[in-house]
């Protein structure tokens, strides 16, 4: 497959015209407060037909490169960035005429053209853009790294439209590769043909139904014997929250304590969605489920969710990560780390996985729900590596987005009272505080914490 490149995505509809991006760019590129040095411009006149940031699109076949008579512009085949070479530039400005996006400018103070270079992959403008009209999209590496790998799952399967698990299973299997044994305990995954139905199977790797209760144990025995025989077979569990946090917890905890070499992915859809949306121990406080119904006498689930990632971290395992498929680059990075860690010991990846059917939201919102869960700190993204002893946020959220907005997306929270919402807010804040303390002070950090709830 061809190279894909990370992009600086522009969402003009979100731009409020504040101009912070211009200031940041001028500062980092010219150490100046004069925005004339900025390589990004905010057009603020609807009469111009545009309101929002204008910046180089790093075209696939850039007109500027073709039109430059001095050979001063070239497209970097590695990064995809259109690079400008000051030594060769003769300041003819022909390039600015050839650009259909107004992405390359003449800077009168410098007497040269200037253009965006993505700040080497960490653009300053993105960091200061409050309304998120600018976003750096680093997912190209996923395509470049994974695009040629075989999809190890059947092209058609029986999941609901908008199901997150399908995305997850395809990406995880593709990443870990064919030398894998997949354990899919009872739930939607085997139901949609990961293990098969009446003689047909949907996975190209060997797969099996463990019991809901013994996923980690069966994989442990399998992995140990392959190791004894000198074969490196990846032991992969794709288990739901029931198979991880509830009835599957004993075998999971035992395998983690023993340091069995397993890559255990918990696909947390916050309940027993496959059997008809009953509550599990990871169902959030207040949530409707079919066994925590809402009526005059009951207000939904009475308890907070069990926060499995920290529970697993306390088993002193090789790796713990939280991930969502909506940040697929982060997802793949964590799958890779967990995969590598599973060759040394127990690796646990906890994936927040919305269920369009059980949570009552339209299937096309699956990604948005995940991103909002991250933005509200309902599901903070972090990882812990035993090798370094460090817990680190991978998508830190200092100013959480509106929880009410997140909850309003999901039918299962429709009934929540102000008090219940406040409770959820406090729980999220408390968990983030614990994680922060641990990321700043090491794992003992939580002991020093004074949590105000």
């Amino acid at each position: 497959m061809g190279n894909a490149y990370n992009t600086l995505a522009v969402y003009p509809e979100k731009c409020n015209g504040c101009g912070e991006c211009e200031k940041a760019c001028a500062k980092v590129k010219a150490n100046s407060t004069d925005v004339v040095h900025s390589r990004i411009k905010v057009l603020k006149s609807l009469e111009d037909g545009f309101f929002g940031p204008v910046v180089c699109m790093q075209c696939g076949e850039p007109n500027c490169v073709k039109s430059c008579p001095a050979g001063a512009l070239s497209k970097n085949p590695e990064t995809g960035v259109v690079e400008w070479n000051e030594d060769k530039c003769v300041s003819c400005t022909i390039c600015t005429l050839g650009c259909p996006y107004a992405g390359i400018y003449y800077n009168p103070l410098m007497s040269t053209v200037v253009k965006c270079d993505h700040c080497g992959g960490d653009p300053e403008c993105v960091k200061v853009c409050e309304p998120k009209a600018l976003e750096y999209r680093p997912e190209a590496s996923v395509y470049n790294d994974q695009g040629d790998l075989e999809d190890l799952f059947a092209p058609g399967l029986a999941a609901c439209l908008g199901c997150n698990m399908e995305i997850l299973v395809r990406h995880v299997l593709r990443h870990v590769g064919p030398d894998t044994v997949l354990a899919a305990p009872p739930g939607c995954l085997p139901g949609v043909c990961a293990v098969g139905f009446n003689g047909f199977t949907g996975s190209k790797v060997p797969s099996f139904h463990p019991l809901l209760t013994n996923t980690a144990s069966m994989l442990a025995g399998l992995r140990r014997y392959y190791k004894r025989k000198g074969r490196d077979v990846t032991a992969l569990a794709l288990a739901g929250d029931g198979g991880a946090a509830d009835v599957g917890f004993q075998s999971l905890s035992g395998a983690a304590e023993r340091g069995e070499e397993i890559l255990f992915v918990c696909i947390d859809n916050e309940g027993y969605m496959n059997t008809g949306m009953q509550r599990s121990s990871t169902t959030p406080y207040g949530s409707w489920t079919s066994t925590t119904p809402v009526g005059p006498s009951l207000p939904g689930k009475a308890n907070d969710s069990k926060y499995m990632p920290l529970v697993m971290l306390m088993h002193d395992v090789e790796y713990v990560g939280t991930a969502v498929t909506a940040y697929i680059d982060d997802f793949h990075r964590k799958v890779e780390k967990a995969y590598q860690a599973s060759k040394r010991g127990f690796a646990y990846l906890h994936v927040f996985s919305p269920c369009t059917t059980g949570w009552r939201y339209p299937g096309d919102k699956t990604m948005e729900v995940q991103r909002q869960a991250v933005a509200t700190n309902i599901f903070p993204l972090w990882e812990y590596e035993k090798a370094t002893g460090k817990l680190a946020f991978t998508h830190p959220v200092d100013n959480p987005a509106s929880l009410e907005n997140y909850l309003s997306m999901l039918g299962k929270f429709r009934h929540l009272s102000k008090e219940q919402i406040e409770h959820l807010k406090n729980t999220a804040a408390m968990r983030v505080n614990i994680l922060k303390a641990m990321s700043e002070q090491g794992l003992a950090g939580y002991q020093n914490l004074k949590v105000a709830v």
Partner: protein
Amino acid sequence: MPEKIVLDGNEAAAWGARLAKVDTVAVYPITPQSGVAEALSTFIADGELQADLMDVEGEHSVLSVLQGAAFAGARTFTASCGQGLAFMFEPYFRCPNFRIPIVMGIVCRDGITPQCVWGGQQDAMTVKEVGWIHMHCENNQEITDTVVMAYKIAENHDVMLPVNVCFDGNFLSYAAEPVEIVDQDIVDRFLGEKNVNWHAALDPERPMGIDPLTGLTPEGGAMFSRYRRGQCKGMQNALRVIPEVHREWKEMTGHDFAPLIEEYRFDDAEYAIVVIGSMTGAGKDAVDVAREKGQKVGLIKIKTFRPFPVNALIQTLSKVKAVSVVDRSVNFGWNRGFLWQEIMATVPFLQKKIPVTSFIGGLAGTDITVEHMLETINVAENAAQGKVVEETIWIDQL
């Protein structure tokens, strides 16, 4: 020369697994089985057994890790009993359906409640219908030998089922006896190549889905039924394979154990007692005593309980006019013993109906003595003469 060493029943079972050169051993302690776990752990620690020791967090995982290892091709062993077996029931229930040849000792223990950690066969008898092969041992030599033979039975292509080697808690688990350890090279030749996952594997080199959803549609239902019929066939094949394996073992080692049932002093027997497990010794002694007194009594020892050796029993029961059956467990549904129920199910196949009296005793680690056995003989003698006791006789009330 074969080595003769003193072993208790738990050590004898561990020795069987050691001789079979198992690859994966899973252990979790429970009285009266813990000695098996300790002996195996020591073998591995001392380098005398090259196996993975999986010291897991409960019996449920004990059997689960073995299932995973078996699908990777490992020869596996463990043992449990009582509450441990009850906790293990979920993977246990499924194990024969996987058709994987795991061998597991059941160090028979009575069921709580009332609280009790001592011998009784309530555990093994309660799980007998799940599809495992059950073989009950009389003494420690038989334990070691049967564990080795169990692999040859379980891994036979026509069987492919897990085997429980059952032996009584306390009476065998803690009783020390001389056991002749067969030379390793003889065992190696006897067992030959491992045959664990040739038919169903979790192996990237030959990917397949293990245990897909099956049923619902007529075709799926037919597939499920075909699978069940295959299991039944494997069980019935075991009734042929178990004697073959015992015969071969005898030829190679000189150790002679009746494979399905044993007839003791049966030549001119007019009535008999039916026993199972460690009580067989007291039973045989009692028969000897009764014979001295002129009673024409024989003994039937049930070695293979699942699959039930009905044809062998028809032949044997046809020779007598009455039997007393001694159970070390309680069949609540019949207010009698489990073994009694099995014998009663065989009686209609005989030319002539015979009376079958149910004895229940030896519960919670109590002894069944020669005196008790003599009473069962008297009851059988009376029954043969037409004086039949219809009610269950509880040995502790004798």
